[in-house]
């Protein structure tokens, strides 16, 4: 029962945050809503007994990624978004599509016997040792490959975010 109450509580916060993200017109508000969502999700993870994930969620997501977002928003001095009417397709085709897809997925998620079984609160079966074993043995390769991914991200960020300077470098060969 407690489990259900906690789930519903954090779940409600989570959904509210998500909806707020959509409703807010200023990106900084959206970013803050997203942080709320993430925090409440961390709580949900704890309810599911995934304490490692919960911790990482707070550290990586809320701590690192969202900081990036906020900094970018600040950097670009992004204001409230304009209500331009750019896309009829997104509204007329996309949203109905999303609704239909969502209903169908929800229906499959609820209606199946395999998913109606309950999970117990904070089962805590994922001890750090097991996780480490997984991470550094079975998932060693993805783990290592992730370093390549991060390397790429760094390179990409450097290349793209740095100010292009070649314009000042004089005439091009072909010109």
């Amino acid at each position: 029962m407690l489990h259900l109450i906690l789930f519903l509580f954090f779940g409600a916060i989570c959904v509210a945050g998500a909806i707020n993200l959509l409703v807010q017109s200023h990106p900084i508000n959206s970013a803050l809503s997203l942080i709320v969502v993430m925090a409440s999700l961390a709580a949900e993870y704890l309810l599911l007994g995934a304490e490692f994930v919960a911790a990482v969620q707070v550290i990586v997501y809320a701590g690192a990624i969202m900081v990036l977002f906020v900094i970018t928003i600040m950097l670009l001095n992004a204001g409230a978004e304009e209500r331009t009417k750019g896309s009829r397709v997104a509204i007329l085709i996309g949203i109905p599509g999303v609704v239909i897809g969502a209903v169908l997925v929800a229906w499959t998620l609820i209606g199946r016997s395999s998913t109606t079984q309950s999970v117990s609160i904070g089962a805590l079966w994922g001890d750090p040792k097991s996780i480490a074993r997984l991470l550094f043995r079975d998932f060693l390769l993805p783990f290592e490959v992730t370093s390549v991914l991060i390397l790429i991200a760094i390179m990409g960020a450097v290349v793209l975010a740095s100010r292009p300077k070649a314009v000042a470098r004089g005439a091009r060969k072909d010109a």
Partner: protein
Amino acid sequence: MVPLAYYLLLSGILFVCGVLGFLIKRNIITIFMSIELMLNGVNLSFVAFAAHWHALSGQVFVFFVMVVAAAEAAVGLAIIIAVYRTRETLNVDQVNLLKL
């Protein structure tokens, strides 16, 4: 005891919110945030299924997804900065040089 389906439903709602955000938001950064929202929804699914199958690997996946999300965030925000430099706008409806 909470049925697994509740968690899945919550994750689905988050995912759909992300998709909707992508469709209706005009600010590129907010759109990007919507993607993060979708990933978060997926993460919840992973953890819930991990609990269901009693398989820790689901939690490890979440870890990887987060790393990917971080990498994406770095690159994505850099791209957004680059776009802002050339176009001076963050409104996605105005980023439409390439079309037809």
